[in-house]
């Protein structure tokens, strides 16, 4: 299957419904298995010599923050496809991932705050990383508010897609804020860690498992929410047909 056919396959609502019917529970199941294994390892690994037991916060904070950024990339790509190619399913995909992204971002902020208080001595500081993640949350909320504010669904989708594309500018700021500015938040300790800043091997497994669990959960929830929106669109179309028949 070449790239064009993959694209066609995912933009055909009927094929998408057939695919997501088994893919959503499969992803959900894999996420649950990874999550249980990750949680077991979270409480098996020894506490950190500097951070003590708060190091366990890392296994829920980093996945929430990383996947929140990834979800925004999905929102941006789906918005682009919906806006430029008028793909109805892509528009539904964008609409479906915004609330999940908002919850993941809120979780990153809340768990980060609960980690920051004992380690930094403050719940919040207006440094570049924390502020740019707060801006990310505002983009998610703005997208959802804009979609809900306009009665004309096509206009709402177009306006929200433009907002989502503008918000993509914030992603490199979130990612590189700890390098571009002097921040209280530490630099990357996972994929892009500088030499010596990476996770100790013993913490890598629970971090990887929880990362997979959060990613799988997003995949499953995204598919389920798109399915819901496809059903909703179908129900609205049927309601219109029914009203015409009754005339």
């Amino acid at each position: 299957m070449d790239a064009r056919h993959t694209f066609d396959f995912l933009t055909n609502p009927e094929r998408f419904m057939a695919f997501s019917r088994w893919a959503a529970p499969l992803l959900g199941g894999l996420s649950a298995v990874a999550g249980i294994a990750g949680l077991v390892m979270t409480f098996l690994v020894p506490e950190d010599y500097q951070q003590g037991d708060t190091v366990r916060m890392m296994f829920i904070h980093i996945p929430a923050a990383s996947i929140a950024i990834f979800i925004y990339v999905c929102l941006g790509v789906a918005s682009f496809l919906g806006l430029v190619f008028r793909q109805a399913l892509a528009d539904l995909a964008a609409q479906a991932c915004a609330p999940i992204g908002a919850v993941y971002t809120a979780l990153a902020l809340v768990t980060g705050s609960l980690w920051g208080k004992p380690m930094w001595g403050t719940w919040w500081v207006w440094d570049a990383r924390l502020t740019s993640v707060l801006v990310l949350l505002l983009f998610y909320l703005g997208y959802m508010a804009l979609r809900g504010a306009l009665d004309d669904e096509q206009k709402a989708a177009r306006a929200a897609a433009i907002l989502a594309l503008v918000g993509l500018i914030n992603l490199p700021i979130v990612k590189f804020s700890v390098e571009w500015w002097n921040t209280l938040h530490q630099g990357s300790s996972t994929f892009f860690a500088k030499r010596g800043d990476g996770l100790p091997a013993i913490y890598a497994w629970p971090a990887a498992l929880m990362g997979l669990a959060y990613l799988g959960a997003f995949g499953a929830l995204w598919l389920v929410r798109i399915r819901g929106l496809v059903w909703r669109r179908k129900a609205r179309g049927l309601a219109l047909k029914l009203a015409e028949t009754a005339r």
Partner: protein
Amino acid sequence: MSFDFDAGKYAAYLWPAFAISAVAFAWMIADSVLTARRWKREAERLQAELDEARP
């Protein structure tokens, strides 16, 4: 290696973080599944009504 659930002086920060995350996931799963089911049932009900209304 044994489980370490004693977070000591950090318990007041650690457990709320895990509890809030668990509640958020429970809410997202319930909301996503229930909303999808509701619209599926609505579409099926309307389709049945339309099939009846058509001669």
